[in-house]
């Protein structure tokens, strides 16, 4: 199950764990990603807290946790190849895996269709 946030993150849940990243729309707005400050494994976050930061040449953007939970894995490939986010933001460019502490929060997020509509309205 894949869901989207109004702050342009996505989460794809498989069992208790979800893969998290920024959306294709977000990477396109940011331009070339040059650095990802990956979160620490084991970090506990509440929904909406800053998960990590993604940098382009002229911006540093916070990525927010789409749901509450614990970081269980990070995409270490992004250390050397942050451009993976530009190439495949919603696939190989995933940022972290989170263990959900409150899966019902997913219901508050948007479906792919809803998110597409949200973006086309401009914000």
């Amino acid at each position, binding site marked *: 199950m894949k869901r989207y946030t109004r702050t342009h993150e996505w989460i794809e849940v498989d069992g208790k764990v979800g893969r998290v990243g920024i959306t294709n729309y977000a990477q396109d707005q940011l331009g*070339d990603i*040059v*650095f990802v400050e990956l979160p620490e494994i084991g970090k506990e976050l509440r929904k909406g807290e800053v998960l990590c930061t993604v940098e382009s*040449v*002229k911006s540093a953007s916070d990525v927010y946790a789409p749901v509450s939970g614990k970081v269980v894995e990070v995409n270490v490939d992004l250390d050397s190849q*942050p*451009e993976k986010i530009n190439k495949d933001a919603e696939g190989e460019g995933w940022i972290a895996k989170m263990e959900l502490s409150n899966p019902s929060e997913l219901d508050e997020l948007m479906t792919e269709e809803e998110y597409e509509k949200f973006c086309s309205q401009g914000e």
Partner: protein
Amino acid sequence: MGRVRTVFEKSVDGRRGSSVPSSGFPKRDLDEMIPKKFIRSTPLNLPKLSEPEVVRHYTNLSRMNYSIDVGFYPLGSCTMKYNPKMNEIISRFEGFTFIHPYQPEESVQGALRIMYELQEKLKKITGMDHFTLQPSAGAHGEFTGMLIIKKYHEDRGDFKRKKVLIPDSAHGTNPASSAMCGFEVVELKSGKDGRVDLAELKSKLNDEVAALMLTNPNTLGLYEKEIEKIADLVHDAGALLYYDGANLNAILGRIKPGDMGFDVVHLNLHKTFSTPHGMGGPGAGPVGVKEKLRDFLPVPIVDFKNGRFYLNYDLPKSIGRVRSFHGNFIVMVKALAYVDFMGEEGLKKVAELSVLNANYMRKKISEFLKIPYNDFCMHEFVASGEELKKYGVKTIDLAKRLMDYGFHPPTIYFPLIVHEAIMIEPTETETKETLDNFIEALKKIVEEAKSDPNLLKNAPTKTPVGRLDEVRAVRKPKLRWRGDDK
């Protein structure tokens, strides 16, 4: 113009460009004086060139720079005015350059007099009661001023004021300086007219707020007409009002920040007071305060007693030093010479003509570019390149194209509250012809954007290098020269 090879690539073993004085004492081996374990075994690779080679290298580099001496530099919020040559001559007098900061005070009375006179004149210009000249730059002044504010509240036993209000249009240094003092930054949304929204201010003011940081005129070039009301609101809430002096040029001599109700003021001698920017510094960021804050100033301050100037360290509540020695003295020399040369009438003319130049440009440019807050401005104004987007052109393209017409582009993408911002500050030292030429070029470029956008997207083409790959600079960092590169 092609690439200038680095000075390291030009190096040839056996060459040298300077003769090193020696006292003629008997030569001794270094290891007689310094134990072997301290003596450098790591190779030291500095370039070896003859004097003419060094002169040509740096002269050729200098020719790849745009500068005020070369042409118009309308960088908003930077006040790129002419830097008088007189100041440079004076600042090289040996009585200023070859004096040591720890010399006995009686042997540097001239230097201390300069500092004292500058303090006194800055008081008169700003309406503040006391000054420190120690801070080295605007941001350094902000840090100093905000620490003074922190210490003031704590000295009154008020430890809950941890927040600083800063408008969304502010310079990035404001929040950064506040954070360095341990404050939490609270952003104030600008009102519809681009100025402080009093309702928004009221809603954010409470007994946890230490200060409001403002520049007046703000970064849109607009004067905060309700500044007295703002000051009252801030003071009634027990907070202090901080003046970012980056835009002082607009009001120089005509309006004093002290009269508007500001408690702390920092100035940029390298903006308003004509000292050169030197590729990014040195500047100087004196800080002025109202009487109740005097005791918190950094030590030492320059005082005068019994016919002598002296360094006064007797401020028991001082925040401490913010740098070594007495600040950027040479910059102070230039600033004082400027103030003396301009006199009261001249300083007022600075504000008047910089505001005239800006409004003239705003009027003319509004005919072909959108100006989101198109009101009578002060020394600068902000246009927007947003309407060019439909031709596939961004503000950065327009800026780069200006270089092909021989101009330095304005500040772009700042302030953040204007999309595709183009921030233009002409200063008072530019002639009407220069302004007209720039306006003409800008107009042509806007037309080019419609007819042949590639001219903008491929610009600049007449500069020593074309657009540079900033993504590569971060992804493959090369921050120093290495022999094995080439």
